[in-house]
């Protein structure tokens, strides 16, 4: 099994999909010669040419909207929104158009569009380049939402998203791009809507997404030294949500921590906590703990940013609270 970075895994999936299907093309800001602001699409212009690797104007509504129209006309576009903060500019097209064409038409059309974006704190960009807005999108019927945390997952899930007949908003995290991991020799599609038990444990389940999966694993290691056995589960897809796997884990451990980098209040974790309390109520031995960013925009000064964003220590503290330590 080769080891690749998360960045390479994304690129691999894009290239593989473009090789296998002429209908797949990519467009976004600075994705061609520059290879994207995160270097994800480097080299794709050389292989696939400017028709299929399209630099766009700074024009988020048109990027997403043109993707919608091309998808309705039978293509499988993958559009890139450089920072998920800029998703807000294209939200009308995502929420009112992409998510609803199939429904409003009574099933006549499909919108096989993938919207890739990335965000995340940890490098002091300030308040407009590091938000985590996945909860906004999970709230909209008609959209699928993916947020893979490892190279293997990002490669297999991006492929699946591209070939899904629904619009998929595909979140990547800036700090994950250099993370390495093993991937199968051949690209293996990973279905959307399937969680992954990342680490098995007996005392408490941490349900984490994106970078918090890695921070949860760190916390789990420390917890183990303290005699607490932690299971880490990554939903991977936020919509549809694999409730069964999450609930089964919590029924086994009887305690749960839900963790994401986004602001805790009204975050994705609130929904997960609700699912758990409803479906595993009799199994819970402690209140469900939630870990997320504090309720403030992201400050520029590194010390303030670090204070707002949850780290492994925050997860560990939540784990301890569930077992009364």
């Amino acid at each position, binding site marked *: 099994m080769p080891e690749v970075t998360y960045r390479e895994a994304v690129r691999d999936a894009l290239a593989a999909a473009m090789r296998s299907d002429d209908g797949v*093309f990519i467009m976004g800001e600075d994705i061609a010669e520059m290879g994207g602001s995160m270097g994800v699409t480097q080299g794709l212009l050389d292989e696939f040419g400017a*028709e*299929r690797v*399209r630099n*766009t*104007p700074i*024009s988020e*509504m*048109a990027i*997403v*909207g*043109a*993707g*919608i*129209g*091309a*998808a*309705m*006309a*039978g*293509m499988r*576009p993958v559009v890139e929104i450089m920072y998920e903060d800029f998703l807000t500019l294209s939200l*009308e*097209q995502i929420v*009112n*158009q992409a998510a609803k*064409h*199939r*429904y*409003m*038409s*009574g*099933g*006549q*059309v*499909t919108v*096989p569009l993938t919207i890739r974006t990335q965000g995340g704190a940890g490098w002091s960009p300030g308040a407009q380049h590091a938000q985590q807005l996945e909860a906004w999108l999970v709230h909209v*019927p*008609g959209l*699928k939402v993916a947020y893979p945390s490892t190279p293997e997952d990002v490669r297999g899930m991006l492929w699946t998203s591209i070939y*899904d*007949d*629904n619009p998929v908003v595909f979140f990547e995290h800036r700090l994950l791009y250099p993370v390495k991991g093993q991937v199968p020799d051949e690209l293996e599609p990973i279905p959307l809507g399937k969680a992954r038990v990342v680490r098995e444990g007996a005392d408490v389940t941490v349900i984490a997404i994106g970078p918090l999966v890695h921070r949860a694993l760190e916390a789990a290691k420390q917890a183990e030294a303290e005699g607490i056995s932690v299971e880490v589960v990554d939903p991977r897809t936020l919509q549809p949500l694999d409730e069964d796997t999450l609930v089964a884990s919590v029924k086994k451990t009887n305690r749960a921590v839900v963790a994401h980098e986004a602001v805790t209040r009204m975050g994705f974790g609130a929904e997960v906590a609700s699912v758990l309390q409803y479906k595993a109520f009799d199994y819970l031995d402690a209140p469900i703990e939630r870990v997320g960013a504090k309720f403030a925009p992201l400050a520029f000064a590194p010390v303030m940013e670090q204070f707002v964003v949850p780290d492994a220590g925050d997860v560990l503290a939540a784990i301890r609270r569930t077992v009364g330590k």
Partner: protein
Amino acid sequence: MRDFLREMLMIRRFEEKVEERFRAGELPGFLHVAIGQEAIAVGVCRAMEDGDIFASTHRAHAHALAGGTHPNAVMAELYGKVEGCCRGYGGSMHLYDVEHGNFGANAVIGGGLPGVTGAGLAFKLRNEPRVAVAFFGDGATNIGTFHESLNLAQLWKTKTIFVCENNHWAESTPGWQHSPVWDDMSKRALAYDMRAIKVDGQDVEAVHEAALEALEHARSGEGPVFLDVETYRMHGHFIGDPQVYRTKDDREDAAEHDPIPRLRERLGLSDDEFDELDREAHAVVDEALEFAKNGTDPRPEDALKNVYA
């Protein structure tokens, strides 16, 4: 030309019937009729070829009917019936009929323009001789999607035409209050180096000719075209709109702008000949109404279908 008149009359009678039934409390939601603007829908749609697609606006009935959707299916949709062109999921402002090239009417002003640009891009990438047509009003020329779409379409020379139905009203706000170029929208195209054609939207023949020219230009890959169509909204923004913002003179002038008598005159039709066409139009609409009223209500729980493919 006689077929154009037949179609415009049918649309007129359809819209009048919709107004009547809405006022009678039979139709849910809220509705916008295109009375006075029929020549644009007919002139443009009759110029389109099989395989061309279009996207419409909240004022969608005329486009759908001119696009070839059966009046029964449109009326049934307005009644929220399973027999409707969207099986009751869409309604007046969201009429789709993919088989007839209708990729959807949009209740968000300017919401469909990026999509039409993208469809035109797909046609170009696949070397297909197809064109994607966007209908929108002058009110849409102030929203971001309009500017982003025109820019992208011209930049990439997508197979797209933009049909601006300039009725000089953005709901209740007159053109002069919402745009510095309200009386010459083709200046908007100029800013994007896009070819523009100005045409009198009350003259169906002129609209048809301009649309043929624009479609041919886009189809051949030479780039998008902006059709600047001057028209006249004879009724209110929505059915029941008291139009307090409109002068009495303006409303009384409406008849002078009616495209139907104008075409009738051009064709030199006698009263008998016109009445015969009109009877046909009424009969089509009456049948549509009957069809719609006898339609099937969806099962409430079907609201959970079609959310995902």
